[in-house]
């Protein structure tokens, strides 16, 4: 890629200490994110899929420095922000925003919509007058498909889908370049999910936004993403172009994930790979390839040698010993 990436993450690591047992000397860590690297170009959507506990939310937050990384580097438009402290981070946050999974918990119930959306405008002193502030908020609400006349209302007066739109308006207020979308539709009704997905796409087309789109629903991720990463136990196991990852994945874990998606059309039903067992504890991840205890294809070397993320095609990386170059 010749373009300078908007966000570049190199060897990012987030290890959380686990409370120490009495008289036990060695401190244990949860390796929530372990040596993860990726880039996001301006206007691009990078999908991030994985099961609960794989570290995808932590990765999304660490990329914005909402969670302090314990290792690695984060570069925003070529500038290293890894070591930035509060005051310099504030400027960075104008360009990096986040929307959360639960639209019920992520909006302050005692603030009006105008103040929820306007708070960021105030912090960054983006609107000089009260009138300008109000007009800006009205336009933002209109942009996300809400009635601007409702700006003095409180979050409880809105449905789940509308609340998620408020969360999107809040993120858009500072005109960011990248929004981390952390499972933005999983808490919504099926008929409302499509509205929010289409809104995110329209906003991307109009404003050239980049997204890091975190979800566990592969079909949704394929629909919205240009590129996709599959995460397992804190590591990226496969990454590449969305269609390739979601249709013809090479890593056995991605293959199982794709085959686990229930399909509407019984005639087109794929042969399902049902994985044995469950995701192991990230405190003591299995040696070698972290997926080997559940992998239907595992060989002897998978138990000892950790596979590296290798490039197998122009835009396709896989971390598996058994995938040929």
């Amino acid at each position, binding site marked *: 890629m010749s373009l300078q990436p908007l966000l570049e993450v190199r060897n990012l690591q987030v290890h959380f200490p686990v409370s120490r047992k009495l008289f036990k000397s060695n401190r244990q860590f949860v390796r929530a994110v372990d040596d993860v690297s990726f880039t996001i170009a301006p206007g691009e959507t990078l999908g991030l899929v994985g*099961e609960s506990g794989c570290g995808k939310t932590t990765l999304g937050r660490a990329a914005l420095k909402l969670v302090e990384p314990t290792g690695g580097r984060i570069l925003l438009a070529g500038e290293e922000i890894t070591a930035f402290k509060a005051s310099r981070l504030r400027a960075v946050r104008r360009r990096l925003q986040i929307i959360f999974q639960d639209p019920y918990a992520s909006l302050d119930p005692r603030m009006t919509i105008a103040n929820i959306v306007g708070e960021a405008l105030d912090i960054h002193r983006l609107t000089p007058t009260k009138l300008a502030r109000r007009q800006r908020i009205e336009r933002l609400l209109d942009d996300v498909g809400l009635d601007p006349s409702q700006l003095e209302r409180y979050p409880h007066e809105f449905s789940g889908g509308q609340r998620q739109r408020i969360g999107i308006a809040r993120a858009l207020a500072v005109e960011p370049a990248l929004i981390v979308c952390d499972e933005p539709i999983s808490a919504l009704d099926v*008929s409302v999910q499509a509205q929010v997905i289409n809104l995110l796409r329209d906003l991307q087309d109009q404003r050239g936004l980049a997204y890091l789109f975190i979800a566990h629903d592969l079909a949704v991720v394929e629909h919205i993403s240009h590129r996709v990463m599959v995460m397992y136990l804190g590591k990226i196991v496969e990454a590449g172009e969305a*269609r390739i990852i*979601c249709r013809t994945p090479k890593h056995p874990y991605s293959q199982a994930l794709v085959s686990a998606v*229930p399909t509407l059309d019984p005639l087109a039903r794929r042969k399902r790979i*049902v994985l044995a067992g469950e995701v192991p504890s990230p405190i003591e991840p299995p040696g070698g390839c972290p997926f080997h205890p559940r992998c239907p294809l595992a060989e002897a070397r998978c138990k000892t040698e950790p596979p590296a993320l290798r490039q197998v095609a122009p835009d396709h990386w896989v971390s598996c010993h058994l995938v040929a170059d």
Partner: protein
Amino acid sequence: MSLLEIRNLQLEFGEPQHSVCALDGVSLSLEAGETLCLVGESGSGKSVTALSIARLLPSPPARYRRGEILLNGQDVLKMSASELRAIRGGVVSYIFQEPGTALNPVQRVGSQIKEALKLHRPDAATDQEVLRLLKTVRIPAPEARMRSYAHELSGGMQQRVMIAMALASHPRLLVADEPTTALDVTIQAQIIELLRELKQQFSMAILLITHNLGIAAELADRAAVMYAGQIVESGPAVELLRDPLHPYTKALIGSVPGLASEALRLKTIPGSVPRLGAWPAGCRFHPRCPQAQIPCSQQDFELLQALPGRGVRCPFFRSTSLPSLSV
């Protein structure tokens, strides 16, 4: 005689003066050994329908205004407390969305299963039978797991324990209320496979409640779609999902992205699901319906027999694969 027949059920919550209607004229039937999937969004009434079968809703506040629920030909709504106790578990067993909250946290899972056996099959209330049940639901190392507490098990394992407990009494009907919603996709696939096997092995009927159309397609023989307290469409699952008739079913199927679909934009349903007690007059879907006509806002339509075995609560339905029929 059907195993379960619900006729014109109407359910309200709250004081009679200012009550909120939750179910309005729900009718459905389920044959022995059949799997019926009740599909709908939150607030559509699918869970209260399911809980009504064994009268699990406390009343008050729940009040049944009309209708009957015939289980093996007997009306559940007219049963005494002791009769209800016999059918709960004895005829109909439940598994719920969040197995973690449905299990007793201070009792070992083995003894919880044994409790179900003591109530319904006292002769079989033994450790061997508990082990056999845990093996039936494919719990690894069942001898050790018997002595575990619920919090020591993962969500998938907890759901397996719930299923073992539900099977302990040899029910004729298993009601599964969003059994995989709280689970990860790969674990969801495991539970779907397990339910599919158990259905064949035990030839019991399953009433599966889900908002996920894909799961309905995987498991159901027949499906019924609920919207705002009513069944708007019912029929054989394959046909219903391939050729939906009701505008709501069509829109719902159109709004779900499939893997490897080429659509650039998803079809959306404008607006949001109406809140309980704020249902629009006439057809409840008409404010969001792309095909709404003048009568839709005034007339409450009945569930019509559109095709053999297929009901639809819309006189203006269109079939994509069949020539239009006059009804």
